[in-house]
């Protein structure tokens, strides 16, 4: 299949329009914020973009397979630590974490390669453990994923020679994840996650979500399909983790645990877990709400009223409200696309109205 066929196959008005829209929206917001030139808002945007990438990786597996992927945040953590180990200079590592294994201390890669290496480590970890788990479904599957998260978390928090144990792992230096780096990677990830969904692998994975048995009888080896989706998701998670650690500049294992998982879950549920647009808007909304509430919290603290943590309560309540009334999230599992916009605005001849649900 050559490039020309590939491009012809892309039905622009339906399929690719989503990617274009999401990227355009992101870049418009990005350029606007850059133009504003207020560092504090730039920081929020950068952080939000990193969370967006995390949410997209989460959506890649969970949205398409329908499996609640508790262990995902563990891979974010693995990527965070791994990429840091690769990017820090040996001298710095020896200083910060004297007990680190010598061969780890000696590793050194430029930042972009370190990011990719971190993602790769996460993918390898997923590739090693995931295969037998992909057969399990429903409650047992959820608990196993949960148990896997605990294993990863304990390893990250106890393996002093790699992660400095429960103590903080300080990267030091400058913030390598800049505004533009985050934005650039986000654009690439949007493209990757969307085309995964529309690829034959993604399609097969989505088939298993609907009806495992029907999919199986159509010849889909859904253990394999789930496996690849899971590993791909871990890779993006690892990438996001790398961006995260090079933004925050100091991490611990506890940064990649239930709280963060809950945040990602909220983004997907509120935005709509079945579509990339859902992850996009969910991440956007939750970030805005949290930041807004944080500002309120700080206002309250100044007047003597301790209110930290209330942001999470509000997000949780919104989450429950969505689950009750709009379980498919804002987007309802549909993608933002040229067709859907035309439909909303009632323009066009309407002849493409037989649009299969995404």
């Amino acid at each position, binding site marked *: 299949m050559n490039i020309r066929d590939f491009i012809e196959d892309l039905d622009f008005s339906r399929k690719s329009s989503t990617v274009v829209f999401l990227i355009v929206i992101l870049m418009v917001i990005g350029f606007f914020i850059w133009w504003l030139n207020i560092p504090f808002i730039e920081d929020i945007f950068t952080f939000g973009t990193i969370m967006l990438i995390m949410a997209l990786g989460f959506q890649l597996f969970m949205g398409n397979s329908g499996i609640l992927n508790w262990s995902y945040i563990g891979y974010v953590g693995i990527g965070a630590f791994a990429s840091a180990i690769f990017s820090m200079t040996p001298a710095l590592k020896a200083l910060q974490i004297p007990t680190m294994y010598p061969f780890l201390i000696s590793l050194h890669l430029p930042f972009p390669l370190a990011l990719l290496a971190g993602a790769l480590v996460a993918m390898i970890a997923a590739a090693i453990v995931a295969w037998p788990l992909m*057969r399990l479904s429903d409650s047992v599957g*959820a608990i196993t994923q949960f148990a896997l998260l605990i294993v990863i978390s304990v390893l990250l928090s106890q393996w002093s020679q790699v992660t400095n144990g429960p103590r903080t792992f300080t990267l030091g230096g400058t913030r390598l994840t800049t505004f533009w780096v985050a934005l650039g990677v986000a654009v690439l990830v949007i493209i990757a996650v969307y085309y995964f969904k529309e690829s034959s692998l993604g399609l097969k994975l989505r088939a298993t979500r609907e009806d495992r048995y029907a999919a199986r009888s159509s010849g889909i080896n859904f253990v394999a399909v789930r496996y690849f989706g899971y590993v791909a998701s871990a890779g993006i998670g690892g990438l996001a983790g790398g961006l995260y650690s090079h933004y925050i500049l100091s991490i611990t294992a506890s940064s990649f645990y*239930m709280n963060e998982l809950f945040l990602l879950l909220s983004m997907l549920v509120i935005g709509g877990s079945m579509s990339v647009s859902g992850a996009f808007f969910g991440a956007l909304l939750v970030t805005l709400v949290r930041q807004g509430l944080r500002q309120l919290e700080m206002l309250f603290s100044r007047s003597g009223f301790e209110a930290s943590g209330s942001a999470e309560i509000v997000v949780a309540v919104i989450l429950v409200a969505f*689950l009750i009334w709009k379980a498919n999230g804002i987007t309802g599992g549909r993608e933002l696309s040229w067709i859907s916009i035309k439909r909303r605005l009632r323009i066009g001849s309407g002849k493409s109205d037989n649009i299969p649900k995404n």
Partner: protein
Amino acid sequence: MNAQVLLEFAINVLSMGSLYALIALGLVFVFGICKLINFAYGEFITVSAYVLYLLGVFTSLPWPLVFLIGILASVAIGFLSELVAFRPFRGRSLDALLVTSFAVSVIMQRLFQLGISPRSKAVPIPAFFNMNVELLGVITPLRNCLIIGTTLVLLIVLVIIMKYTVLGVAMRGASENFVTARLMGVPANLVISVAFIISGFLAGVVAIFWSARTGSVEPLMGMSPLLIGFIAVVIGGMHSLPGAVVGGFVYALIANILSLTLPTSLLSFRDAFMFAIVIVFLVLKPEGLMRGNYQEERVG
């Protein structure tokens, strides 16, 4: 390996296993009937522990009354959370239920942080709990004997309820086939509320012994027992009450064996080993140790 060490080991496993069995039972009652994996169960325990703290520190009520009120608190929270947070989700998918209970758990944790304190607080426990006694030649805190005894009593009571009362039969029927039970006239709301009440009751008992052991309460303390409960339930077979009990003891057994056999350098990884063993077990035997009467789905 002399008899003394063996005996000490046995008492540790029995006392730990008893506590874990109670935790697991609290989870499985609700899961059996509603198919809900109740993340907020940890918070039922925490509420009770906070009540023990508040009453112990700010009042001079006698300890039996404090314990009683603590248990009533978790029963109330159990009943209320079903009424308010879970009832709207009845009949929804397993995933929606799971996420909801997760959200409820987060909300309650934050409320503890905001309403009381993010820091851990010392829970006053009657002194005799931690007094050392001699049992079969082994020195052990009294609370270990108490938990074994309490669990025994509670198990007998629960067995009597489940086997010899109509309500118990109705609950067992409902956990096998909820719709058919309703067709027989078993009221859905009653059975579910009772399940949550029992779950809350067990959480209250667990809170007493858990805070006796750790001596403190903090907003996130529910996570550890919750995790233990999950694993014990899954090992024992998610659809079986006896399975939960067995799972609790098996978990305690494995944990204690690991504590003894792991080289010191790896001891801090004990939980990782624990859960890795659990994962391997589940991959090989997803239905758990005790076969329930419900077909879990496993394909491939």
